[in-house]
């Protein structure tokens, strides 16, 4: 026994007597331990794959959302409308949508119709979306204007 310095002979004797007592056996065995280690190792591996799958799903979701936003921008027309003034065509849709050629623009006649509607105080009938000081006219509204133009 180490570190017995400083103990009295009686204490040393008692220490040795207790040391001769053998601890009772336990039911835990080595095979059980290895099985448990294998199980935990497998769970760890599974958790890594689950984490990767979750990251992929989030990435896919973000990608789809950004694509949807881009498509929405690309299929809209931006018009600057100031109170008491005629609405102006802007190139904002080109800046936001980023697709110069495919970005829809109002037909000149539709645009004239829009001006007339705004001057006549009928602009509330349109679905205007405020966006950075501009108004976005959705593709559907553009189609409506086109239909009116055809009727005229």
């Amino acid at each position, binding site marked *: 026994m*180490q570190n017995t310095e400083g103990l009295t002979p009686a204490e040393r004797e008692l220490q040795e*007597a207790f040391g001769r007592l053998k*601890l009772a*056996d*336990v039911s835990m065995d080595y095979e059980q*331990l290895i099985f*448990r*280690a294998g199980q*935990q*190792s497998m769970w760890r591996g599974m958790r890594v794959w689950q984490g990767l799958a979750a990251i992929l799903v989030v990435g896919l979701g973000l990608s789809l959302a950004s694509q949807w936003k881009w498509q929405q921008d690309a299929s809209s027309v931006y018009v600057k409308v100031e109170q008491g003034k005629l609405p102006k065509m802007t190139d904002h849709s080109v800046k936001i949508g980023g697709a110069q050629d495919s970005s829809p623009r109002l037909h000149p006649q539709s645009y004239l119709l829009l001006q007339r509607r705004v001057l006549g105080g009928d602009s509330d009938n349109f679905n205007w979306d405020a966006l950075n000081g501009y108004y976005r006219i959705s593709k559907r509204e553009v189609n409506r204007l086109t239909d009116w133009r055809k009727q005229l």
Partner: protein
Amino acid sequence: MKFIDSKKLSHWFNAYGKVLVHYARQWLSMESAEDVVQEAFVQLLLQKGEPANVKAWLFRSVRNAALNKARSIRHRHKYERRRAVSNPAWFQTSPEDLLDAVTAQSALLSLPDEQREIILLRIWAGMTLEEASGVIGCPVSTLFSRYRAGLATLQKAMEASCKTQKD
């Protein structure tokens, strides 16, 4: 990633497994103690490298896990905890023993926790006071005082038991 060699693990398991279970039994039932010790060995196996002092690492891990588990079941009745700690027997009975195993167990269990802990680490785990200090996190001088106090209490308990038997 380099895992620990299974031969080494088997050696450590045979050398320290039993004493680790009894070490954890100070705070837990036999079942929970075995569970905590198994978990410590599993964590050792899944380590990236071998700890510098495996024995100290195992005892420290078991101690922390056992104390955490004991804290989580503290709401149970103290009597139940004491009964769980004392059953089944701590020692094998042998006619060559200088002390009666049952008396020795009851004397050991009558010790305050901090004295019993150092007695277990010194006598059955064969740790030096310096090693035990690394496990418990107390200065060597404090542990030596506790050890001597524990031995004195054991001595008294054994003497009292002898007197009772004579009477």
